[in-house]
């Protein structure tokens, strides 16, 4: 026996952006271990920003110098194709922006181990201690977000999922104010997230049982020739779906979103609402389009129901919310529903599929930037006890600080999809793809796609109601006598809001350049 372990081939150049982020995260841990306390923040912040910026630059270099690879790398474990590179770019910019929000003292607990309200806590606060571990944790989460949508087999995807989620569970519990709420959010997120991971893993096992492989194209190949009503396949596909849909917060797996978004420190909420959603949508697309592409007559009707339910639940429940972060959470649920409409817009021809894919990528880009901007503004409206979460506290904000309220109103209009904002074109692109897909001759859903789009616009109209309600509160109501104060924003926060507003306006007026980028990214679809 001369079993020689073959060293796996790793294309370091292709994976460089992801490796850079993970490497910086490890360095960050070392800094935590060895650097003196007073130096940590000074070292962590530049390390994090430089690594995220550097990773983004590497993505650009890769796209410009070599274009997207056409083969999966790392022994078929990771597919760095056009959509993956686009998603990487978006996630890196978003996380860079979120780090600018994190770099703002008031949000994180001084000592996470201290019992809320205890003397220890006061002591830690008085001593001005903080958790600079946030930065490496965030980098690990971002690394996971990059791996998750680029994974080419289900096990790698699972690893990406966990690497992304575990730091997020932890970071959710680190809010400085209302700590019990934050810890509750962390606990809930962890328990439900662990459940969904288990579903995902179980589904992977079932599909392995069916196909004899965990590689996505392998499963698809097995589907092409195999029995399509095999219980292993159906159970596996359902379980996998549950795990993935949980991460994007699609109904009926949306229950964690409002609690977690509300409890988590707002910069982390911003990261989850943008980065996690983008990554998870990428993974959903890859699993359903690549792995289960030959099963689409089977999953599309299920997805129809999920998308419809998600839009309705998100839009209707948002109306009853009284907390701004919960409202934005439900709005994010509704938007996940709109995105799922795009996921269903599949065609027989790959060229048209590329059209749908570019629509989804475009939507992800515009939505996530607006979201980060909105949460950045939420961090600025403060009460003595922390952020002024309750909607009634926002009354008359338009009179106190017209610019801030104006920008926020603009973001809300973008969420509502009013023309001349970026959100409108995102919605338009997805709806157009869905209608085109439904009108394709022989489409298994046919007129049902039109029905879903109509449902989508009705949900948009309902959603518009609660966005507009906030505008009414801010502009048409008299300010309360003891209204919230507007925190003097740090440079970082200003930069975040400015970037988000710029993207929302710029893409709203001239979407073509961004559409071109999305179109090129989607042109060759996923690596199969």
């Amino acid at each position, binding site marked *: 026996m001369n079993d020689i372990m073959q060293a796996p081939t790793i294309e370091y150049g292709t994976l460089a952006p992801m490796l850079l982020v993970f490497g910086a995260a490890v360095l960050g841990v070392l800094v935590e271990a060895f650097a003196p306390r007073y130096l940590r923040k000074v070292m962590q912040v530049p390390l994090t920003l430089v690594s995220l910026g550097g990773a983004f630059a590497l993505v650009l270099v890769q796209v410009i110098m070599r274009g997207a690879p056409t083969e999966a790398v790392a022994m078929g474990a990771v597919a760095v194709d056009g959509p993956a590179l686009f998603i990487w770019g978006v996630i890196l910019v978003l996380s860079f922006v979120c780090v600018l929000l994190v770099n703002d003292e008031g949000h994180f607990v001084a000592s996470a181990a201290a019992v809320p309200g205890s003397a220890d806590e006061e002591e830690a606060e008085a001593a001005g201690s903080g958790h600079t571990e946030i930065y490496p944790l965030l980098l690990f989460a971002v690394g996971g977000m990059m791996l998750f949508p680029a994974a080419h087999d289900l096990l790698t995807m699972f690893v990406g999922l966990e690497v992304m989620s575990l730091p997020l569970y932890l970071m959710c519990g680190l809010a400085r104010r209302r700590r019990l709420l934050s810890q509750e959010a962390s606990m809930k997120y962890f328990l439900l997230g662990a459940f969904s991971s288990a579903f995902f893993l179980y589904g992977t096992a079932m599909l392995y049982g069916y196909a004899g492989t965990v590689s996505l194209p392998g499963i698809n190949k097995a589907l092409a020739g195999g029995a399509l009503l095999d219980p292993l396949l159906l159970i596996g596909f359902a379980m996998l779906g549950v795990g993935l849909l949980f991460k994007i917060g699609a109904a009926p797996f949306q229950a964690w979103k409002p609690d977690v978004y509300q409890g988590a420190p707002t910069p982390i909420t911003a990261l989850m609402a943008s980065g996690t959603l983008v990554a998870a949508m990428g993974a959903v697309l890859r699993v359903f389009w690549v792995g289960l592409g030959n099963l689409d007559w089977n999953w599309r009707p299920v997805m129809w129901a999920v998308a419809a339910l998600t839009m309705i639940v998100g839009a209707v429940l948002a109306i009853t919310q009284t907390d701004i972060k919960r409202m934005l959470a439900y709005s994010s649920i509704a938007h996940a529903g709109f995105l799922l409409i795009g996921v269903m817009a599949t065609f027989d021809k790959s060229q048209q599929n590329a059209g749908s894919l570019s629509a989804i990528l475009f939507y992800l880009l515009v939505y996530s930037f607006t979201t980060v901007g909105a949460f950045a503004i939420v961090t600025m409206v403060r009460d003595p006890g922390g952020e002024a979460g309750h909607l009634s506290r926002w009354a008359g904000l338009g009179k106190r600080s*017209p610019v801030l309220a104006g920008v926020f109103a603009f973001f809300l*209009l973008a969420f*509502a999809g*009013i*023309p*001349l904002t970026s959100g*409108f*074109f995102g919605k*338009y*692109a997805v*709806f*157009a793809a869905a*209608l*085109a897909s439904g*009108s394709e001759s022989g489409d298994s859903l046919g007129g049902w796609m*039109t029905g879903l*789009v*109509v449902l989508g*616009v*009705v949900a*948009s*109209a309902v959603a*518009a*109601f609660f966005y*507009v*309600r906030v505008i*009414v509160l801010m*502009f*048409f*109501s008299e300010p309360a006598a003891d209204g919230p104060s507007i925190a003097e924003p740090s440079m970082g926060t200003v930069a975040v809001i400015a970037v988000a507003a710029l993207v929302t306006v710029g893409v709203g007026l001239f*979407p*073509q350049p961004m*559409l*071109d980028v999305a*179109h090129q990214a989607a042109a060759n679809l996923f690596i199969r």
Partner: protein
Amino acid sequence: MSSLWLPILLAVPVLGAVVVALLPKGADQVAKQVTLAVSLVVLALTLVMAFQFPSAKGDRFKFAAVYDWIPSFGVHFGVGVDGIALVLIVLSAVLVPIVVLASWHDADGVRTADGTLITPKRSVKTYFSLLLVLEAMMIGVFAATDIFLFYVFFEAMLIPMYFMIGSYGGAQRSYAAVKFLLYSLFGGLLMLVAVIGLYVVAGKSTFMFPELVGAIQDPATQKWLFAGFFIAFAIKAPLWPVHTWLPDAAAQAPAGAAVLLVGVLDKVGTFGMLRFCLELFPDAAKAFTMPIVVLAVISIIYGAIVAIGQSDMKRLIAYTSISHFGFIVMGVFAMSQVAQSGATLYMVNHGFATGALFLAAGFLIARRGSPHIADYGGAQKVTPLLAGFFLIAGLAGLSLPGLSSFVSEFMVMTGTYASKAHGSGALTVAAVVSALAVILAAVYILWMVQRVLNGPTAEPVKAFKDLNVREIVVLAPLVALIIGFGFFPKPLLDVINPAVSQTLVNVKVDNPAIAEKGAGQ
């Protein structure tokens, strides 16, 4: 070859709005003057354009300009005007400076004759920059020859109006503003589905209107798409039974904004029916003619009857408008040259007449602080000038012969009566029933005039001052237009008629007027 007229016409108010918005705090007077100047420049440009229109090049859409906007979606920045669009742009350009003057003090905090504050001081420059943004969008929505661009203006123009009602309106303003926005947005979103559907089904990879005419042949598809467009326009117009937002919005909006809302924004609905519903989906339009005419007749009668019962002047005027919009819709769908030209003329005349009525009522309300008819009485003796203008505007509202609305209402009714488009005499019956509204109109207008202007002078009315110079300058041009076009509507009709003929050709209706012209040559 692209003409720069319309892009400039759009750019001027937008730039003006930016300038006004960027003025330093406290420069209220400058903001007003800049706004007035900009709106007058727009008016001047529009008038020059209008006089050049007959000799301008282009077969249907003149002053056309087409630029690529979003090539991936087949969307162009395509603008151009035919006669119908032109008269509506002129209407907008005439009304805006008048509204600017009329709203001169609206955001300063309005005090009644006895000194009570009825609306508090609000941001002046925001109001006037919103007004200019709205003007650009009103011009854009009528000028758009790309359906996507039309949709963008159609939806985006809601936002400035929403803030004008919500921030500057009366006591119930936020309710009215939200109701207005949600109704319109809902209709707009249904239209969005139809817009996308049109693009997908036509398969021409363009949104340019001229290329899409006749692109949809399948009757069933036509009906669905027609419905998507029509519901949006019916809400906008508004037609019974989706009219309920209008009285609230018009009553709560400041008088100037109400003029633009009822005078121009609502016309987008009837304009859309004529331009898009009819020409893009001719078979569906013919198939749905009778149900729509029935709705229109209900609107005519219902609006008139409900108007009689109103105790609030602005709500009363809003309901009379619902009745008038019924006439316009009936004229549009009667599918005859006379009726459609009449309907288009009606859109313009209604803008002037209702504008004058709203503004005159607004001046009364600003003096008394109450929109309730019962709070007035005998104003004629105290403020003879105001009363005179109010009376003429009111008489235009009831379509008195010699005033402009009469011509258009008469054309709509005779055109509908004689229309053979629907074969049977059903349209004749509709015309006869709608004629009842002429009597009802006399009731609602004259009864309001009687209660407000005549009778014993109410105590608070005695403190009223008559119109000042600014207010006369506001009302005089409108009254002049009402009387002028009442006797001499030909300039407008000369512009409107060819455009309507073209519409009817695209709808494939046998058009006696064209046949006549052909025979004469």
